[in-house]
């Protein structure tokens, strides 16, 4: 994939993108949760 033959390397890149997307989605979904007045 994209000039990288070893699946253990390109799957690493794929995992990196998935983890980054997970951070973005988590941040967006919880953007307003846990405010000080929520008692958290």
């Amino acid at each position: 994939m994209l000039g990288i033959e070893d699946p253990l390397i390109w799957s690493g890149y794929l995992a990196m993108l998935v983890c980054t997307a997970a951070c973005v989605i988590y941040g967006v979904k919880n953007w307003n949760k846990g405010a000080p007045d929520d008692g958290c």
Partner: protein
Amino acid sequence: MAVSTSVLTVFTAAYLVIVALLAYYGYRKTKCAEDYLLAGRNVHPVVLALSYGATFISTSAIIGFGGLAGQIGMGLIWLTVFNIGVGILLAFAIFGKRTRALGHKLGAVTFPDLLGKAYQSSFLAKASAVIVAVGMPLYAAAILIGGARFIESTLSVSYNTALIGFAIVVAAYVIVGGLIAVMYTDALQGTLMAIGMSLLLVLTYIKLGGVTEAHTALTSMKDLVPEGLAAAGHAGWTSMPVSGSSLWYTLITTIILGVGIGVLAQPQLVVRFMTVKSDRSLHRAILVGGPFIMLMTGVAFTVGALTNVYFFNETGQIALAAGGGNADAIMPEYINAAIPDIFIVLFMLVLLSAAMSTLSSLFHTMGTALGHDLLKGKRADSQKITQGATLIMIVASVALAYVMPANIIARATAMFMGLCASALLPAFAMALFDKAPSKLAAKTSLITGGAVWFAWTAFVHVKESSALGISGFLFGKDTLMAMPWPVVDPLIIALPLSTLALVTMKLWESRAAAPLSKGDVEPL
């Protein structure tokens, strides 16, 4: 490099003026010890994310680990997966929220203080402070070496001048401005790093003719792997090392797991969770932190490996040879040689920022461990004591930087993270997640983790044991065990054992405290 030293000096001076202004802001905003130690517990989420990321990512990641990728290849990308998945998502969403809540509830202001108050144990507070005060200078010295080497080559000053000057500048704003100055300068430095690393990736692919072309060229270079590295398991820069080889064990156990897991119990990072006033700030910080880390280590490891293509095209040498056999020299050499002059100033500031942001946080954490957690006692004037202690720790780090060997940046980072995880992680996790944490279990775990980590480092893991020389002095050989154990990182042995010690003691204590069986209960 066509950019003159005087131009670089002017930009460096301008950058330092901005840093000085932020330090002054920190100084003005610091009204009490809690401001100095925890930035008033009211930090903006973006500042938190950038500060955490910039502290996390130092010259170690860009110069040290980027150079390591130039040496051993793209397998380091799995460390980025751990950096984001464990170092951001798990750290903020699970550990961070609990740390913030517990820190607020107990009024804790440092990592050792948090452990001590959670277990009501001065032993745990002092023991974890000792680990910070003894182990962290190793990491700080590695950052100092990386920063000084870069300043030496870029500004054409002597190594001594670069080392001392660098330490003095960082020391000044840490001691004067406390954590507010540290975190705001971190945020500035993190912003510069994000811009610079994005550009580095784009410029590298442009230079090498495109993404697929660059990777294909690197894949085709596998026959150029030096004999020594091939014998150790190197299978090419776009392949993982041969499974079970010494290089494979080093990559998986020391680099990916050691650094990837070790981040959870890093005192200088954990304390940042206590600087925000709500979980909402942590949620928002995750949104910034994940992409930031991808831009840092993901880019550094990719570009690090691709430097082989550039140097081979330009000089007929692989990156390690172009760096004179020193992996730590690969990234500075590449940036100076390959990046257009117009961006050289930016990259100089990026690398300077990476070093300064981590170093300032380490200086602050070491100073608070020695000053607040070990020396303060019941004295009220903790800020002055912490400032004095910070100065002592900075001098110790500079002294250590003079005696540490070359090629040490990535290894010293992994060692410190391994020690923290082995000794502190199980006790820290229990303090956060167990409603009735056991003091005895935490103590046993900390002692077991620290002792096993040290024993494995001094007598088995050959890269450190040969450098320390204790095993050679006592037993006449560098390692006491046969392959593959000498290449298995101390963390892989010490962390499971310290966790086992914690669980065993907790169960034993629960059994001992369990009520008597029904027939044995005396009537009221």
